[in-house]
């Protein structure tokens, strides 16, 4: 029983990180119908910057966010305006897979060139500390990355719901033509939305660097589960992605007790198939998916 309780706690924390990593991915789809294969590549890039930042300055990797969040926002904005926006609308979804696949390869190659294929991990003074919660040990780094995920998702939610820009972005997602008719510059809005999505990759990367070893090709490991999460959650829906991420993360950890790690990780793909068979537009939210 202690093991189940411990696993539930760890699964929830793990799910929080998945939610943060998937949030950006679901937005690209919502805004632009772009399958952003390079999102996990940018997450790993963010993790490498956090690692390098700490080894050079000796400061906490979280502080690297001051640099990476605005930098990733600008890169995302530029990527949308100068690359994605030039793809033909009729073949946008397919071509975006090819384009962002290439970008992922470039990121992986550059990281490998600069820092070799060696795995890196930040040794933090609080790296092995944990808090006791009703008999379960809760690692401090996981609490930090969960908090980071929660704050980022909450900010994202506020931006989407409460700001003028958020309303414009939602309008662009729901009906670009109508949005243009009421005077929204949908191109600019899409660029900003892309930038915000990529900024979440910077936060996710820093969180990832706290709790795992990183290496250049690590992004291939992440992109599969993340795509599964956003399909299950409903494309374009941030709350959907968050709920699906926590549910799948928790299920995965709990399944490891009877089934072992190899089979437990197939839960993402099993959920993906089930979703496509039973409810193709996703289980949580996701009215948008009906358009595809």
């Amino acid at each position, binding site marked *: 029983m202690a093991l189940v309780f411990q696993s539930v706690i760890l699964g929830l924390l793990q799910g929080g990180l998945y939610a943060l990593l998937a949030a950006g991915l679901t937005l690209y789809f919502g805004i632009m119908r772009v399958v952003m294969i390079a999102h996990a590549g940018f997450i790993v890039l963010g993790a490498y910057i956090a690692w390098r930042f700490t080894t050079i300055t000796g400061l906490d990797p979280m502080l690297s966010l001051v640099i990476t969040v605005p930098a990733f926002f600008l890169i995302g904005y530029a990527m949308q305006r100068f690359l994605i926006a030039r793809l033909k609308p009729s073949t946008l979804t397919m071509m975006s897979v090819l384009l962002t696949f290439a970008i992922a390869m470039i990121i992986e190659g550059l990281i490998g060139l600069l820092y*070799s294929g*060696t795995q890196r991990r930040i*040794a933090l003074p609080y790296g*092995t*500390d944990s808090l006791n919660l009703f008999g379960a040990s809760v*690692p401090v780094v996981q609490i930090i990355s969960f908090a980071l995920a929660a704050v980022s998702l909450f900010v994202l939610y506020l931006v989407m719901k409460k700001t003028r820009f958020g309303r414009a972005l939602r309008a662009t997602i729901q009906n670009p033509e109508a949005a243009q008719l009421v005077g929204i510059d949908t191109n600019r809005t899409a660029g900003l939305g892309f930038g915000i999505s990529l900024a979440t990759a910077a936060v996710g990367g820093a969180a990832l660097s706290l709790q*795992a070893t990183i290496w250049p090709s690590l992004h291939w490991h992440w992109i599969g589960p993340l795509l599964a999460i956003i399909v299950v959650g409903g494309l374009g829906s941030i709350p959907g992605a968050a709920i699906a991420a926590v549910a799948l993360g928790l299920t995965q950890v709990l399944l490891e007790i009877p089934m072992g*790690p190899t089979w437990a990780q197939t839960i993402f793909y099993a959920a993906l198939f089930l979703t496509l068979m039973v409810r193709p537009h996703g289980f949580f939210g996701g009215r948008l998916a009906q358009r595809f």
Partner: protein
Amino acid sequence: MSRKTRVTVAAVATASALVLTACGGSSGEGEGGEGGDDPIQIGISLPLSGDFAEPGMGVQRGYETWAQVINDNGGLLGRQVELSIVDDASDPARVVSDYESLIAQDQVDLVFGPFSTRLVVPAARVAEEYGMLFVEPAGAAEEVFTNGFENLFYAAPAVAEDHYNLLFEYIMAMPEGERPETVGFASMDDPFAQGTAYGLRDQLVEAGVEVVVDEVYPPNATDFDAIAAAIANADPDLVVGGTQYQDAVNLIIALQQLDYQPRMAAFSTAPTNPEFPDAISEVNGILAPTGYSNDAPYPSNEEFVEAHTELHGEAPQEDEANAFTTGQVVAAAVEAVGCAEQGECQQQLIDWLRENTVDTVVGPLSWDEAGRPQSAHMILQYIDDEIQIVLADGDEGTQADLVYPKPEW
């Protein structure tokens, strides 16, 4: 093509043919059947790109150091050695065609093995077809030795299953009351990593130690929370990892986060990696098997470390040492038999190695019928944040006493 051009092309072609014929003639006539003073050509295919590029380049560095040392000492049979190294991109199909062309077309005198079980097996098959001696630095999994190869020798102290042998002997020699009674295993689904862990597991089970956790995870696993929770929950006296680098680091930190305090903790591969103490702040007490140490007291080791450090700017690690050992093994056979070329000589080299022991930088090596080395891996432990050899074949190889129970991490 104009007439003038045609004449020029024909002239160049004729001249080239004459030059080539002249060259061929001189090497054939002037130096006799043994190859004379020509360099001894050694053909090698290595994964210099692809999945195994990192260790592949390590093996390349070790081979280069060996070639330099032997050439500086007057060569092999009085002839210089030359390495012909080609890149197989970690591809088992490429490794086959590489050795085919090195042996059949380039007519190299000797071949050395590539890196990793996945490439060693197909490469050994080609070498056997051509009757070549095949000494290899990096195929330790059991499947290498169950293929019936009669030309293969593994140039390291022990196969994967035997890596923890000295640790097992140490545990069995402990007084009954102090001996670990329960053990937990976590192993990557990989022939080498699993081989190391299961070699120890099977011996411990036979000796009556209870296995309370036995987890296997896929090679790409990054999240070790659930495995760590299962181990911490069962709280075994001894935890053993059949690991490579990244999984060992993630697993150890996950175990530390759950404040599980084993009395003994052993992980294969990772602790010998120079990055390991940078990634984990509490390393003291962690044990690992290793086939090589810079400080090992074997006669040629000091020269190897010095030459390697001078050539490559850093001290050698296990991959480099196994490559250097491969060179030493082949060189010993060549010097003893007195030949190094394709044909009958190769069988003489193989027969000699079957019967003899070779002194190397990883200690004296001899082999069984299948090419398994008959020595033992040393066991190292982190003591005061430094690697110390705590168990070795013969007491002169040890640098410190094994610390048990291990300090808290």
